[in-house]
């Protein structure tokens, strides 16, 4: 990496790549334990899309395997939203709704610009559009389903709400219209929750009582356990292949 432009682009690639890598791993944790076989395949498909994005982005920064398997927790730059545990299926869907809505808008902005990520974003935005569609359909069915599914979906939306403010903090190396991004995100999520008969959470998304700082390397408790599982094979058997 030479010069500030490359350094800034690498920082941005690390943030976006870590978001995709970490969420991909979380979704992969459903393999073997999803509610139904069809949904397991759907979640695995989404995970693989994200893994593909992560590989492209991390390769811009350095060796993708070293970055994924040999970094310490504090070196990861993903937002705290994507590292949150799967919880019940409603939590997974709420996390997916919040993130894929953000990612689609974000990649939409990047694709229409002329920055270093325009090509990648143009390809990825089509994948992410499907992720968002999948999450929205499940949000509608769980929110407007049975009394129990409604209650669980509402609880999931409430619990993850405090992690959404971080998505609209400036990312080093990306020139984004952040207020536009946040407004569009709120409009989209509010509309889906409304159709799903869910209440838009009222808690704060920024400030002292919100979460954040994942982009600065500060992560939540469960992230360490996730990393241990993700990295232990490579660390135990360096260079292992099959």
């Amino acid at each position, binding site marked *: 990496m030479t010069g500030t432009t490359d350094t800034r682009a690498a920082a941005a690639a690390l943030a976006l790549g870590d978001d995709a890598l970490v969420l991909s791993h979380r979704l992969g944790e459903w393999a073997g334990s999803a*509610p139904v076989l069809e949904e397991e395949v759907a979640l695995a498909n989404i995970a693989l899309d994200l893994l593909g994005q992560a590989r492209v982005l991390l390769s811009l920064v350095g060796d993708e395997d070293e970055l994924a398997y040999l970094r310490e927790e504090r070196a990861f730059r993903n937002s705290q939203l994507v590292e949150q545990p799967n919880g019940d299926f409603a939590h997974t869907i709420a996390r997916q709704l919040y993130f894929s809505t953000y990612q689609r808008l974000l990649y939409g902005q990047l694709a229409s610009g002329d920055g270093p990520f325009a090509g990648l974003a143009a390809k990825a935005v089509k994948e992410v559009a499907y992720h968002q569609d999948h999450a929205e*359909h499940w949000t509608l069915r769980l929110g407007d389903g049975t009394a129990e599914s409604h209650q669980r979906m509402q609880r999931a939306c409430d619990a993850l709400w405090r992690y959404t403010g971080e998505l609209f903090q400036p990312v080093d190396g990306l020139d984004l219209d952040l207020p536009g991004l946040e407004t569009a995100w709120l409009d989209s999520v509010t509309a889906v929750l409304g159709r799903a008969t869910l209440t838009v959470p009222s808690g704060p998304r920024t400030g002292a009582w919100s979460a954040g700082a994942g982009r600065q390397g500060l992560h939540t408790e469960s992230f360490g356990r996730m990393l241990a599982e993700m990295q232990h094979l490579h660390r135990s058997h360096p260079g292992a292949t099959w």
Partner: protein
Amino acid sequence: MTSDSWPLWEVFVRSRRGLSHTHAGSLHAPDAEMALRNARDLYTRRSEGVSIWVVPSTAITASSPDEKDPFFEPAADKPYRHPTFYEIPEGVKHL
């Protein structure tokens, strides 16, 4: 929530324009919209299709194996129904 409580859907995929939809398999889904999405994930992951139909399995009326003989046997000894008596002109390769 188990797939036992979800209805079964038959999936038909058209692999490209000009061809007809072909039965690809079946799956469980709570409703038609989700069945389409599951079908997309299960049967078109490797660019197999340009169009998908999903049909409730209960909507399909199938011929019974017991009726195989009266249904299909009579066609077997009517060779005049097969266009085997035509001379194929030379140079026609794709008939």
